[in-house]
């Protein structure tokens, strides 16, 4: 998992509440063999019409939000099924942080486990950020260390995060990362084993 410390980037406002994981990534994209490439299914029904044509009015299709790395979303983002593909698709699209007033629990966990930062702010704060995110020529800063989001106007908002989660995100520690902190123990175990059960070595 990649570490998250600080993110400077463009923010796209998605003024929709209750965006569920089916909207984030529809089921037809789940039979894939990759995590990469899932971005092609991200917000599929919102980005494209029934004929596969691009919907120019959808925020992520607008040229000014090209390359956005922050998504500012409506309430209860990520509800629905538990699919891990939702954060995979967002990250594959280049979005490393989602800001909302609330997230569905499983989605939030899946995000944290994959290195995508979910930021929870008060309704008026999210609204203020949405306003500032209009027009693409801007930079938002999300700083995990100080737990703040800074808008282009300089307005700063503080967010809460579980200290353990924060530590793991900043270090880029997923379950694998945590176990790899025991890499030394694993090395020692393997070298002992090479002596006690040598037939298991190639």
């Amino acid at each position, binding site marked *: *998992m*990649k570490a998250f410390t600080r993110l400077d980037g463009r923010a796209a406002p998605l003024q929709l509440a209750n965006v569920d994981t089916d909207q984030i990534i529809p089921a037809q994209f789940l*039979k*894939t*063999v*990759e*995590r*990469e490439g899932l971005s092609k299914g991200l917000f599929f029904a919102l980005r494209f019409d029934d004929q596969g044509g691009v919907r120019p009015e959808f925020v992520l299709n607008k040229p000014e939000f090209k390359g956005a790395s922050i998504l500012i979303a409506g309430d209860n983002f990520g509800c629905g099924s538990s699919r*891990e593909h939702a954060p995979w698709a967002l990250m594959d699209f280049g979005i490393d942080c989602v800001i909302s007033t609330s997230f569905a629990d499983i989605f939030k966990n899946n995000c944290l486990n994959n290195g995508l930062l979910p930021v929870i702010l008060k309704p008026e704060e999210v609204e203020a950020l949405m306003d500032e995110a209009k027009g693409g020529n801007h930079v938002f800063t999300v700083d995990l260390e100080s737990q703040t989001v800074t808008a282009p106007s300089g307005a700063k908002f503080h967010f809460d995060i579980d200290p353990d989660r924060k530590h793991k995100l900043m270090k880029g520690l997923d*379950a*694998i990362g*945590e*176990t*790899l902190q*025991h*890499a030394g*123990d*694993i090395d020692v*175990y*393997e070298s002992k*084993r090479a002596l*006690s*059960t*040598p*037939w*298991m*070595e*190639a």
Partner: protein
Amino acid sequence: MAGKTLYDKIWDAHAVAQDGGETVLYIDLHLIHEVTTPQAFAGLRAAGRKVRRPDRTLAVADHNTPTIGQALGVDAVEDPEARLQLQTLGRNVIDHGIEYFPMGDIRNGIVHVVGPEQGRTQPGMTVVCGDSHTSTHGAFGALAQGICTSEVEHVLATQTLRQAKSKNMRVTVDGQLGPGITAKDMALAIIGTIGTAGGTGSVIEFAGEAVRNLSMEGRMTLCNLTIEGGARAGLIAPDETTFAYIVGRPAAPKGAAWDMALSYWKTFFTDDDAHFDREVRLRAEDIEPTVTWGTSPEDTLPVSGHVPDPASFATPDKRASVERALDYMGLTAGQPITDAKVDVVFIGSCTNSRIEDLRAAAAVAQAAFLEGRLVAPHVRAMVVPGSGLVREQAEEEGLDAILKAAGFEWREPGCSMCLGMNPDKLAPGQRCASTSNRNFEGRQGRGGRTHLMSPAMAAAAAIAGHIVDVRTFL
């Protein structure tokens, strides 16, 4: 201090570190296949990680491979998604230097048949695979567990699994099985006794005279079904039967290493004074040929039994679920289970596709054939060997000729109709006598009705055209 169980000993021998409530457990053998690995490899790649021990990893293609035309390789696969998964595995094993038996290779087959057959599975090991029936390998006294894709990635990257320890449970089967009664009947009878949640949170060790007397094939069948009893894994202590099975196999230790391995393996048994959190005892004499009537592996009946009446169940919940199961299965309360007419017979899966299973089926086919009887005209009966090597051996023994003469289809190896991911599926409403391990709704195809039973019982059902007591054939 109380002695240790077999499970305790394997656990202790593999505990690398403690991390909060979890133990980092070293994994000796990681078996992989095309369906549960692509995203694990993708995750590995995204994080720039390598496979820590490619030499302790073995790949096969089994879950979505067709059971005909395998010599064509992936061109035999019509489903584009299945083909892509197979191609992806092919690429991943090359990228990471992992040994792979692709479709069409004589050593390929169902992952839980191939591991033991190659001598890769050995006593005292920890074995994992992204398939729930990994418990099969417990037959060797190995701690063998099914894992999910994110754990597959974890094992690829670290050669360890993070886990909290389970409880110890022991199931003892005393006495001797009657003629025509197999490990499958024993396994179904045990699940019928303890229920599908009976082993929850536990690792089950199987013991007792009837278990000791089983061949390795029979032990694998028994451990295979442990997972249907809710347990994390099943175990049987290694003994002379185990060692005799392993000796001479391609990955078995040779020469001086064999002697060293043997003395190590012999340390894996449960001490006399070890404590079990739960004990269950059965008498082998009480076990009849056993079949399932419903949509859960615990819905078992002796073949002489009758379909249960929902009214006879204690709770309203249970009554409702029995009613639903009978409706789905197209059965009537109180009817003899032998009235159930079958449309399809499937002999295969990692539960029952080894040489001994095929011999048992062929013996029934031969006995019937000599009396001038063939597979009933309305029945499609397929035999799917567990691996290319099992298939080859069966052909050397002439089993294929007997089965084909009696009207069975002789297919190429793979999971096949165990889970219906390949073209071998039941049509809605079709009733199947199956040697596999799960009779869930839709498991073998949407609307398909599955009755689990032993290979001999399934072969007998193919000939009779309905569920029947195999002992009337012998």
